[in-house]
């Protein structure tokens, strides 16, 4: 699987390269600044990109801006964004085009190699990987929002895990229920949020979007 990596700290970049190579990824470009990242993304059109939010030259949200711009030029380009902190605002911007294949994780999630590699794979295959911290903040806020208020506590739990990017099987594993039960819940969720498209991946992305946008 071809991968573009953007990280300005040399130590962490080398570490990530080694880690990802060990899990069978082919690193086609490892860059350390925003403009080069954009060039690499558009030129290589990788299967997935792992991008640090804060990059030179401005050391602001250069990486996120490059990722969003690349996705404008190459729609649906899978990108996993890593950051020292997570912001709902940025999560929304990543999800806004509704095509999925995005991830937004805290940098410390890299420590848990298996989960991290799993998240990269999920994004590469068109899914989402949202940091539980984004999700938990949303949970605190969205309790009063109308369409979401119709969900049962169990359905909210399922939606939360779905928002993190878990598959039905993974959700079933985490909640200790059968996969059939989970798919029943997801059907209910889609109905309550009035999402009626047949494409499964897209449906999940839309549900997460509805979740993030709260009342919309």
């Amino acid at each position: 699987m071809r991968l573009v990596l953007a990280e300005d700290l040399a130590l962490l970049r080398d570490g990530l390269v080694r880690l990802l190579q060990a899990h069978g990824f082919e690193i086609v470009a490892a860059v350390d600044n925003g403009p080069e990242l954009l060039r690499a993304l558009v030129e290589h059109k990788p299967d997935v990109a792992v991008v640090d939010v804060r990059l030179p030259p401005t050391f602001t949200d250069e990486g996120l801006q490059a990722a969003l711009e690349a996705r404008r030029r190459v729609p649906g380009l899978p990108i996993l964004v890593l950051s020292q902190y997570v912001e709902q605002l940025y999560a929304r911007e990543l999800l806004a085009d509704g095509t999925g294949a995005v991830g937004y994780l805290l940098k410390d999630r890299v420590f848990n190699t298996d989960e991290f590699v799993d998240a990269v794979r999920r994004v590469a295959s068109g899914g989402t990987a949202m940091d539980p911290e984004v999700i938990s903040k949303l949970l605190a806020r969205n309790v009063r929002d109308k369409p979401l208020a119709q969900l049962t506590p169990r359905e909210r739990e399922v939606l939360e895990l779905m928002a993190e990017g878990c598959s039905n099987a993974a959700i079933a594993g985490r909640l200790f229920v059968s996969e059939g039960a989970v798919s029943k819940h997801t059907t209910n969720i889609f109905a309550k949020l009035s999402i009626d498209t047949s494409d499964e991946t897209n449906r999940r992305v839309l549900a997460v979007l509805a979740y993030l946008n709260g009342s919309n």
Partner: protein
Amino acid sequence: MSTLTPHSADPPARGRWLGRALLSAWRGFVLVFLSVPALALFITCVVFMALVPLGVGLLFFFPLILLLRATANLTRTAMGSWSDVPIAVPYRRLPQGRGVTGLWRRTRQAITEGATWRDLLWALLYLPSSLLLACLPMMLIVNGLHGVLMPFLWEVAYRHVDPQWYTFIKVDSSQRAGLALPWGLVQMIAGLALAPWFARVNALWNRSLLAPTKEAELALRVQHLTESRTDAVDASAAELRRIERDLHDGAQARLVAMGMNLGAAEALLSTDPEAARTLLAETRAASAKALHELRDLVRGIHPPVLSDRGLGDAVRAVALESPLDVNVNVTLPARPELPLESAAYFAVTEVLTNAAKHSGGQHVEIDLTYVDGKLRITVTDDGVGGADLMKGTGLRGIERRLDTFDGTLALDSPEGGPTTVIMELPCDLSSRKTSLS
């Protein structure tokens, strides 16, 4: 503090013109009565000033000055709210201190302060000036009314007594009395037409004596800067203490615990690998917690979105995390200076927190605009209102912090709501790059 409601600029209808002219003539008449305390205070002040060297005066002079200042302040307020000529208060802060020494220091400052002498001059001149400028329209109107009623008065009263003079008309027949009617009418109309102009001229005259001089303005400015600088230094010292404490109790303590755990795990590795594994897992959890705390701490010092995107998106990010339904409108041509941006950000955050805690509302509108060289932030909620700067310390604290940047906070919160907080910070938005958003 600035007033919230701008003065309406629409041209008044005819009926309202009459009403306003009458009102301003009436107010001018009322203002004359201030000459009673003014003159009385002038005389007593002069007398007791002469007695200051004898000691008796010292006891009474200062309270008299305070009364004089109260009278002058009343006039200042009246000029501001009645004639739209705001007059700033020129007095410096009085020195503290107990007993005779304190009284003496206060008296000495009052005597040496230019504003005191200008107040006294004002008190002396107030009676003639108010008769001439404030009261004249009302006198014209009343005298005019007398003339208009002359034919009637002649019939019922004046014909039975000695001939009366109505200005230059000797009223000794019904024809002459009839002549007084148009003349009276002219005076009434003149009085009404002149009333707003006289009110304004009177206000300007009062301002020339009651407003601070250039020198006094500078002295007040220095006093204000000294105070706000002290506030700023105190606030940043307190902030540093908080950060130090947070680091000490939080991340630092966790790192120590992690070090100990790792040492124990190392020792257990050969004898009890299972226990070592548990310890290592615990240590990893602790490291995640420490990171989490550091992130929160950094966010409290300077939120990442603020440095990434500027004020607009930073406020949007806060809005997303608020339990209320917040709508943010941003029209800023560029980013303000970093310290001011940060102050504005924390001010909005606190106002929003206040609204969430106390307003009982559901919806908040936040507007960020740049008007007349000022960054203006308007926060409106649909809560129950009744917020008071004097009661809550929250808004007061925000006001004080904005003060460091010469910013102001105005609050409009009638019982029943809605509550509007307007914060204004003077700044130059041409000096930095345009915001990305």
